[in-house]
């Protein structure tokens, strides 16, 4: 059927009108939204400015002229929560205890269970952080106040304890920084009941990230080491967690774990042995020198490289004769570590390096490495 030409003009007119109406409507909605956003921002700035003054009075003049912080309207609770969050990483000591008191007395923690499940990853991470920073694992202190004293809308049935257990599922969060914050919250509690899930989370991470994640595990404190000793499966079956154990012994400088470290040196895993040697370097016990020296002929260059560093630290100037053979090692990293150990030993080590550098009969690789390290040390004024 042919299109009736007399309808074309009215149709175009209506279409244009409709388009203009739609554009106008969208502009209006945009303007209203922008106006609301500006108004919220102005309100936020005004609130923050007022609260900053109230907070300094509350922190420093309490008991003198300001007994409490003052009322915060219910509608501004979420703003106040964000306001307090600005101080959680910077303030400690007495002032932080007062902040915590304020946070709990205003019932800001009541929304945590919902926030831990929020769709926004930033909200989930912030909730986990608050549980850790404000120490909500101490149940007696954050029980709900009596009904008459509740300044906030109390929802019957809301959980007021077991916050850390609610953080646990966040270890499987698809957003890495949320999982990382959850792990930090759990370790910050120093409660070893979370050691197994946090360790399992660390083990799921990529190998290259593990040493960085040691920082998280360090949060448990040195008590984690005896727990690992008791609970980890045999290093011969699964050496991976024992690598973390060795590195943690080093970072905590936990001398009581030295016998276990020496025992781990007998495990055939190269990565584990190299990590144990790193820990032995930090513990710096000269008694273990003969045991470390026995690994100087290891077929794995990663082990020989660590031995080259360890001998200098553990043996002092008397290690020079044992370091010189490592200067002829076929692997560059081993020669460099041996040369660096000699430089670090001071006069006796530098003399040995100078002799190597100038002796035309010495090994060519050893001579080149000696020259390179001497130049390096000279440039930095170490000679």
């Amino acid at each position, binding site marked *: 059927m042919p299109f009736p030409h007399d309808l074309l003009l009215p149709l175009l007119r209506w279409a244009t009108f409709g388009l203009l109406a739609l554009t106008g409507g969208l502009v209006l909605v945009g303007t209203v939204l922008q106006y609301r956003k500006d108004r919220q921002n102005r309100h936020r700035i005004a609130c923050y400015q007022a609260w900053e003054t109230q907070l300094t009075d509350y922190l*420093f003049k309490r*008991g003198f002229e300001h007994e409490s912080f003052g009322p915060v309207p219910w509608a501004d609770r979420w703003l106040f929560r964000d306001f307090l969050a600005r101080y959680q990483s*910077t303030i*400690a000591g007495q002032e932080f205890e007062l902040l915590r008191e304020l946070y709990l007395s205003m019932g800001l923690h009541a929304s945590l269970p919902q926030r831990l499940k929020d769709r926004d990853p930033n909200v989930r991470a912030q909730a986990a952080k608050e549980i850790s920073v404000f120490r909500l694992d101490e149940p007696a202190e954050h029980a709900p106040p009596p009904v008459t004293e509740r300044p906030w809308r109390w929802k019957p049935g809301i959980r007021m304890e077991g916050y850390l257990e609610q953080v646990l599922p966040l270890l499987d969060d698809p957003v890495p920084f949320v999982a990382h914050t959850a792990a930090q919250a759990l370790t910050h509690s120093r409660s070893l009941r979370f050691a197994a899930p946090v360790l399992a989370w660390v083990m799921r991470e990529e190998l290259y990230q593990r040493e960085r994640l040691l920082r998280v595990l360090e949060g448990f404190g040195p008590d984690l080491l005896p727990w690992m000793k008791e609970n980890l499966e045999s290093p011969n079956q699964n050496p991976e967690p024992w690598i973390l154990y060795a590195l943690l012994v080093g970072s905590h400088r936990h001398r009581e774990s030295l016998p276990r470290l020496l025992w781990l040196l007998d495990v055939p895993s190269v990565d584990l042995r190299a990590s144990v040697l790193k820990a032995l370097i930090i513990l710096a016990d000269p008694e273990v020198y003969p045991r470390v020296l026995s690994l100087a002929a290891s077929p794995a260059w990663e082990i020989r490289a660590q031995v080259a560093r360890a001998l200098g630290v553990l043996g002092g100037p008397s290690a020079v004769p044992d370091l010189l053979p490592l200067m002829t090692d076929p692997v560059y990293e081993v020669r460099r570590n041996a040369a660096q150990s000699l430089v670090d030993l001071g006069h006796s080590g530098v003399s040995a390096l100078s002799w190597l550098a100038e002796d035309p009969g010495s090994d060519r690789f050893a001579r080149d490495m000696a020259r390179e390290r001497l130049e390096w040390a000279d440039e930095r004024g170490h000679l």
Partner: protein
Amino acid sequence: MVLVERGRLFPMTRRWPAQTTILVVEDDPATAKIIQVRLEMEGLKVLVAANGMDALEILHRDQVDMITTDLMMPAMNGFRLVQEVRDLAPPKGRIPILLLSSNHSEQDMVRCLAAGADDYMAKPISVQVMVERLWRLYERSHRVG
């Protein structure tokens, strides 16, 4: 003179000379305000800068007796500020500096002190402890001076 905190009285043993001025370099206004108010309660005159560049400008313009600076800041960070201050001719080049950082690594502490800072505190900080450390630095610099 006493300070009233948490309903208890703490005798204030520090005797800052009148008009002692401290420059607080901190990019986070919330933290800067807390530090400023606490130091003003000590009777100190407090100047606030948001970064190292502003701090240097204030330092050239005003008389400053001590500096406390954050490490990570835009425009010019704490390390650089310490180096710039130490390059100035005395007495400004010898102003005691307390560095505050949210990084807890041993290397950073060593770097801060090697750059010429007199002391280092890792965040989160207790403002009470910070005031004590500033007092010790002030005492020491004036004994040495």
